């Protein structure tokens, strides 16, 4: 498989801020690749570097094997779906979608046919004569998608495209985007700060923090085997325990992560496959599918425990605040983390 996009030691410096700091990524052709991170972590800058709106301060970016540094956006075979959609307000929907074909000199009848076809692909057939201002947020989003896809790019860049939509619509669009990507076989590079979105849609996810990549992996590995404390806490929720507790439980001072849903309340005697910690229950949050318990450990640290409500509600004695409880989890559920030295140093 060829690489769709390859970053080699790419940095982008704004003044004295290193927005992107020596990032190297290989994105496979046909992959749904997400860049996940908090705001200001460098993920959007990376996307803009691929699109050509930004130029790297150092390093090399190859798109399908061709060095892209120095190429203008209009010379690159990639298209972008913008966060604010960036639809042209003075053109109707059809002309917006046909724009890329028009500027490339595609004849009028062909480009209008292809625009209509692209609108059909995003379930907006018949909306061609409307102006963007007459559409809802979700519809504008689809127009932006059709406008990018009509050019049949080899790489589609999506900059938090679902950010402005409400939850139901967002979930629906997630499914549709994933389906489109499978149908078309185009490489999708998707920027988001929403970890559930990244996990549910992607083949692989790169987690960004402070301009650097913490981990690139499949959603499952990212969740089950986070490499660093940042990934453990940013992707899902996690208890990251370090220092003396880590030493006692694992025999090593390396921090480790334990997911709240892997922890049980101890009943009966502990076996050698399990470890236990005791503490005082200081918060209980009912969350629908699960209930979240917050435990204050003996050394003052916090431990979150999540119990699926099917289990919790059948429990013989309901737990109450202030109660002393013992938490127990299997040794194999603990994941040893490595502090990302470079990130921590800055």
């Amino acid at each position: 498989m060829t690489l769709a996009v390859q970053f080699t030691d790419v940095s982008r410096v704004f003044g004295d801020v290193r927005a992107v700091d020596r990032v190297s990524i290989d994105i496979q052709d046909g992959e749904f690749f997400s860049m996940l991170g908090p705001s200001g972590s460098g993920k959007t800058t990376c996307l803009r570097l691929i699109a050509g709106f930004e130029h790297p301060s150092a390093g090399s970016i190859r798109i399908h094997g061709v060095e892209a540094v120095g190429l203008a956006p209009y010379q690159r075979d990639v298209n972008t779906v913008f966060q604010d959609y960036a639809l042209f307000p003075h053109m109707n929907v059809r002309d917006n979608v046909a724009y890329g074909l028009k500027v490339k000199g595609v004849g009028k009848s062909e480009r209008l046919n292809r625009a209509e076809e692209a609108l059909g692909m995003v379930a907006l057939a018949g909306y061609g004569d409307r102006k963007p201002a007459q559409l809802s947020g979700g519809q504008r989003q689809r127009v932006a998608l059709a406008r990018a896809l009509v050019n049949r790019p080899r790489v589609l860049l999506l900059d938090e495209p679902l950010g402005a939509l409400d939850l139901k619509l967002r979930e629906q669009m997630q499914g549709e985007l994933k389906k489109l990507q499978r149908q078309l076989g185009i490489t999708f590079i998707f920027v988001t700060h929403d970890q559930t979105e990244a996990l549910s849609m992607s083949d692989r996810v790169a987690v960004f923090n402070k301009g650097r990549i913490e981990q690139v992996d499949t959603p499952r590995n990212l969740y089950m085997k986070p490499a660093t404390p940042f990934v453990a806490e940013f992707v899902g929720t996690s208890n990251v325990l370090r220092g003396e507790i880590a030493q006692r439980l694992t025999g090593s001072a390396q921090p480790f992560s334990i997911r709240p849903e892997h922890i049980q309340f101890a009943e009966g005697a502990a076996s050698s496959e399990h470890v236990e910690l005791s503490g005082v229950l200081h918060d209980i949050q009912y969350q629908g599918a699960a209930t979240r318990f917050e435990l204050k450990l003996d050394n003052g640290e916090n431990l979150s425990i999540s119990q699926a409500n099917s289990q919790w509600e059948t429990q013989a004695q309901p737990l109450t605040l202030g109660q002393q409880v013992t938490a127990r989890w299997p040794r194999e559920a603990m994941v040893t983390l490595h502090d990302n030295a470079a990130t921590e140093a800055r």
Partner: protein
Amino acid sequence: MQISTPIAVAEQRQGVMNRLSSLLYRKPNLYLSMLLIPPLVWFGAIYLGSLLNLLWQGVYTFDDFSMTVLPELTTANFTALFQPANFDIIVRTVSMAIAVSIGSALIAFPIAYYMARYTTGKTKAFFYIAVMMPMWASYIVKAYAWTLLLAKGGVAQWFVEHMGLTPLLQFILGIPGVGGSTLSTSHLGRFFVFIYIWLPFMILPIQAALERLPPSLLQASSDLGARPWQTFVQVILPLSIPGIAAGSIFTFSLTLGDFIVPQLIGPPGYFIGSMVYAQQGAIGNMPMAAAFTLVPIVLIAIYLSVVKRLGAFDAL
């Protein structure tokens, strides 16, 4: 039980103001009309009322013999606008106004574009001041200054001579309808001065329109494969047309109404503005002056409807 007493006392104390403010809160239209009626009365009486009154004068009769206005209604003043002598004035003024608007737009656009897209902070403030400062200086002084600058032996001529372009200037001044004996008595000179004076009115609206253009639109255009000139023609220009239209309304109407520049610079012959001035000032023919006043109003109305039909305001 008298538990509610403290509250009741407080209510009584603040009673009038409280009741008034909650009344205004409950009836937002009353609130709005209280705020709006005084300025609307002022606007209606002082602006529209006096304008209509002025136009009404246009149907009165001016007695040439006694040089007085008689309250006898007639349409003669308006038909007189189409007499060759008067119609020439209208054509001369309108063609100058059109030329000035186009010329200003061509010069203003690059400046406005630079201001909107490439300047920030102090540089932007510098440009704002640089554009507006000439407007703070006295209009009359500037117009007089230009007569000297453009006069025979003036700075402009001196400069042209030193550039070795005198034959070119002579050629341009020789073109009928453009030239004249010197720059200061040519249509070209008058055109320059009008552009000089009205340019800020063109720059600022265009700059405002370009400022509103989200950068993501330009990036989207480039992303979709448009070269810079295509982005300019397809996206930047159409979206800046409301600004150009607003600016041209200023330059067009200000040129139509001006009566000082045509007197000081350029060949002899009335403009609408100087004709109105002459009719009501020197001659005292108020009805004819009023009839001439109607011309710019009608022309601007026509201009606006044409511009609107072209879709200039669709993107607003």
